[in-house]
């Protein structure tokens, strides 16, 4: 078992090294949600009224509402960034090192997802600290419990991103996928407005948002931050976790794209 531990350690070490060396990646990942928090939310809160909905027990400001969604945004974009890196690695060749190891490929891919999730969690925690000083404050226990939840749900988004990277044939197609996956996934969720608000405007969009895994991820984080637990959401998250991992593993099971590109 020791070799598996060293293997995980190596993958996490490399991801953290890359993260430290690419400081611009860290700041750009933070700027996006901070823009929403500091600027967009000012305009949105004028237009949107928020009723009391679980897990909140009182009226809240719009800034308070969108913080869990913006954490989701960090995780989502970071996952896709990682997926892009993997695609780049695959095109450039370094992905072959991972895929040709004698260690179980699914385990290696899981370690890769875990490593990226650790980076996402560091970014999300940094964002929460900034939001705290901006005035969006929760109980300390909420923050503590949210850390493993962010890590766990980030793995789901990384697994989805990994699956996407496995089906994309060329690096150039990734921008298209970003537009067709990231933006719909983010906007058709409860990240920026509650589902009942969407329902008021469009039943169709509400239905799509209700089935969006990202909605469950955001709500799971939101409930945890406010020390609330919803069993249905939890079980759904577990199901999405298993499904996304399976997709990622199957996507990289019998890779043929390396040779295909050469033909």
């Amino acid at each position: 078992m020791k070799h598996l531990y060293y293997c995980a350690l190596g993958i996490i070490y490399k991801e953290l090294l890359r993260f430290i060396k690419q400081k611009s990646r860290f700041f750009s990942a933070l700027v996006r949600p901070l823009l929403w928090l500091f600027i967009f939310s000012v305009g949105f809160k004028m237009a949107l009224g928020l009723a009391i909905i679980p897990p909140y027990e009182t009226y809240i400001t719009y800034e308070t509402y969108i913080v869990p969604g913006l954490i989701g945004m960090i995780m989502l974009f970071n996952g896709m960034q990682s997926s892009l890196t993997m695609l780049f690695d695959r095109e450039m060749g370094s992905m072959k090192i991972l895929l040709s190891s004698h260690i179980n490929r699914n385990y290696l891919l899981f370690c890769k997802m875990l490593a990226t999730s650790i980076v996402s969690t560091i970014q999300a925690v940094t964002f929460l600290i900034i939001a705290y000083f901006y005035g969006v404050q929760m109980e300390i226990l909420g923050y503590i419990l949210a850390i493993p939840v962010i890590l766990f749900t980030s793995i789901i988004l990384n697994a989805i991103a990994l699956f996407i990277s496995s089906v994309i044939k060329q690096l150039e197609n990734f921008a298209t996928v970003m537009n067709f996956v990231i933006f719909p996934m983010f906007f058709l969720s409860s990240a920026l407005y509650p589902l009942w608000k969407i329902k008021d405007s469009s039943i169709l969009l509400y239905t799509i948002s209700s089935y969006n895994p990202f909605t469950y991820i955001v709500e799971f984080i939101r409930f945890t931050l406010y020390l609330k637990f919803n069993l249905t959401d939890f079980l759904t998250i577990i199901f999405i976790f298993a499904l996304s991992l399976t997709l990622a593993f199957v996507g990289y099971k019998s890779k043929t794209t390396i040779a295909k590109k050469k033909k």
Partner: protein
Amino acid sequence: MSSALKLDNVYYKYNKDLVLKNINLEIKKSSFFVLLGLNGAGKSTIFALITRLLSLQEGSISINGFNLKDYQKALKNIGIVFQEPTLDLDLTVKQNLYYYGSMQGLSFKQTMNSIQSELDKLELREKLDVTVRDLNGGHRRRVEILRALINDPKLLLLDEATVGLDVKARFDILNYIRDIIKERNISVLWITHLFDEVEANDDIAIIKNGRIIENGVMNEIMTKYEKDSLPELFKDLTK
């Protein structure tokens, strides 16, 4: 005694095209085996099948006596140098080596211990803390070779390992590889399209359009076809 690498009746189809046809190869232990062919002949597809980057569709591959289906055993004692650069340019040599070592289930200490004896031979000791981006092509290739030796392999696979290097760097690498066959008692599969990298006593297989068209010891094949040089023989066989 089992062979270092054995391919039996390997076929590979991409879409409707049969890109490998009935490939049979056997590499003896502690030998230098050259797979020679033009670009697009199927060399890299064979390499990708051995390293599991592609799934085997038909036939069987065994490495050091282990069937590739049991890849956790089969791939454990091989070292690989890919045709494309596979180092992380933003990391140092040491960090790249450690990352690869971890892929083999080794700790940092185990990784560094395993390459101590080769660091000076490859003139890389002074380069350990240099970022790969700052190395020239020859040194990058040496790092990749050093990396392939981390897990003390019994079989070393090198796919066009000298492509893009100048003549001196090419032959430095080739001579190093030939030397370690005896020193480390390993077998080497050297995939190339460069005739001057093949020596008279090398085991060689010539591949054309996905088919092995000749296989044996280089000078015996030359005698068989009454040819004086490999380019002449190759031209004759592949026309």
